[in-house]
């Protein structure tokens, strides 16, 4: 099984965010919000880092 770097990062972010949401918050509503927050941070940081690497490479 081979994944691209981006799809691997998305799947990683998805599962890690679920665990973070469940373990770091006390009630279901906060869990969902925190999980979504973590997921969006993972994805945004991945995209930002990829642009930084693109700039560094040029």
């Amino acid at each position, binding site marked *: *099984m081979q*994944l691209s770097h981006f799809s691997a990062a998305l799947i990683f972010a998805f599962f*890690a965010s679920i*665990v973070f949401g*469940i*373990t770091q918050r006390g009630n279901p509503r906060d869990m969902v919000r925190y999980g979504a927050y973590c997921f969006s941070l993972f994805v945004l940081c991945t995209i930002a880092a990829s642009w930084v690497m693109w700039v560094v490479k040029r």
Partner: protein
Amino acid sequence: MSPFQSKAGSLPSGEVNTMSVLAPIVGWLVPGAGHFMQRRWIRGALLMASIVAMFVLGILMQGKVYGINGGDLLDMLGFVGDLGAGGLYFVTRAMDWGQGAIQLASADYGTKYIIVAGLLNVIGAVDAYDIAIGKKD
């Protein structure tokens, strides 16, 4: 009363009881099982699905599962992370899976998936402990 004896009813936060000893151990051996023991069915199922999926995806991507004697500091840290997956790690080692394919970039992603699955499982086991001592609902 022994420190491991359970009390009926709600427990003050931080008190040690039978569940607070068993839940993290069982939760480490089987991801999510520490929550199942405490009737947190949905949380346990989500934890189990997430951790098992990450670990299995890591194996399918031909990630490496570290042994105890890697001979290198980073290998030892990888071993500690992998060991966090508990039963998944022991089964994988027993079946001789996770040899790693260093020529593939995705195999390196797989190695990280396996390590992070183990670390997330430790967080899940600690969460089961927090629930057992009444620190968390």
